[in-house]
């Protein structure tokens, strides 16, 4: 799965997520958008969970199978997989690769 397809899936989730937020809190559609945990993070705990669930739903639409993003595997990662949209796309790619292998 290309990084571009995965990012496009995340951007669809961002579009949906932004409809629920005031414009000042909108997430930008860029691989560098900070999400959670870094110094510029946009999301609090509820925001993170809401966003991750949307990404899981759109990922299932796109890739035809359910993936679980916020779980034990995410906690065990060496780097925070939710720090930016780009990090999240890398993490999704790894999960898809592992599950295909």
């Amino acid at each position, binding site marked *: 799965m290309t990084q571009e397809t995965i990012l496009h899936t995340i951007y669809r989730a961002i579009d949906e997520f932004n409809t629920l937020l005031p414009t000042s809190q909108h997430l930008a559609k860029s691989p560098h958008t900070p999400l*959670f*945990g870094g110094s510029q993070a946009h999301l609090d*705990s509820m925001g993170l969970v809401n966003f991750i669930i949307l990404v899981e739903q759109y990922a299932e639409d796109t890739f035809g199978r359910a993936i679980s993003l916020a779980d034990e595997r995410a906690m065990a990662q060496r780097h925070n997989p*939710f720090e930016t949209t780009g990090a999240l796309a890398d993490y999704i790619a790894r999960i898809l690769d592992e599950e295909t292998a």
Partner: protein
Amino acid sequence: MTDILEILFNRFRGASTAEALIWQDRAFLYQDLLSRRSAVQNDLQNRNITAGSVVALKADLSPQSVATLLALLVQQCIVVMLSQPAAGQRAETFRTAQVEYGIQIDGADHMHYQPLPYRPDHPLYRQLWKRQHPGVVLFSSGTTGERKAVVHDATTLLEKYRARRYNLRTLAFMPLDHIGGMDTLFYALSNGSCLVTIPDRSPQTICRAIERHQVEVLPVSPTFLNLLLLSRADEHHDLSSLKYITYGAEVMPESTLKRCAARFPHVTLLQKYGTTETGTLRSKSERSDSLWVKLGGAEFQTRVVNGILQIKAVSSMLGYLNAPSPFTADGWFITGDRVEVHGDYLKILGRNSEVINVGGEKVYPAAVERVIQEIDGVHEVTVYGEKNPLLGNVVCAAIQAARPLDPPAFIRHIKRHCREHLPPHHVPVKIKWIDTEPEYRHFKKTRHV
């Protein structure tokens, strides 16, 4: 001044040049708190806010809010603690608690007074007036959406802080209107300790505060620990000052505890347990990586009846303003928490009810259903909890529309409506669209509320 307040104020005077609070990265000494308290006291008297007055205090932890809370207690007022209620809840709160005056402390630590039209006459308030004791009112979630107003005699609530304990720099994680927040505040003050306040509860902010202000105790929820482990914010800060992490308010997943014990091998992890109705019990965890805990202390007795924990406490509330007394005839409070027993130790397994615990916040499905049911186009709704690795549980809803509608647009509309009318943790993160009657039957409500 009541005996216990006298003792606490003597301790504050003894620690007058010690740091009491860190607020916006600035240190405030016990003598600062004492002088602010005197100024607020004069202000209250000038405004005719006297013994027995019912005063709502809406504030985050700050030098002024602590000084105001202390002044109100010394003045023998009944203090209704408030945080940020959802729109529409404020008026209901004032009416339920029969609030005569509102005091709000803003982000710049300035006080704003607001006279309110309610006149208190509740029998529980009459008990406090007769005893000539100050009171504290906290809100806890109720099964059908109304929040239960819990009335405490402040002197019995504070009694457990009579004995001196450890002087440790502590981070103030829970808000002031939460029983855990009150416990952190008075535990720290009663030991002449410094309480470090934070502007938000992100892992980044908290790790920075620990490093910068040499925090020794971090009292948090298991959800925060999940988020901390995930964010790895601890790797960017020196947390070597940290000696204890205490956790409570929701069931700790064994995997989170073990991961946390491994990540912080030099920190002792301790479980806390309390309810809004009984106060926070003294506790002792078997080990850092163990969920077995001993509960009790001189002021508390515990027993397990049919697998459910019951508590008898000196600090138990007088009762609810807006609900019948929940105590057994012999004075025990039925917590609703299922526990396992092993000798003197207990393992908390969680609520034996339909309550959904979202990151330490209790959500009653009926409260959310009531808000969704108000929406034009909703025929039926069932709200239920679903396990979530980060928050423990999340709120979900199954909806059946009254007429043909565009599901994605209508789901967005429902979420928006919920965000406007409910606290963030109550808003369903997943909404399942049910358009056929037979499928809907799987989600039919079976509860009786």
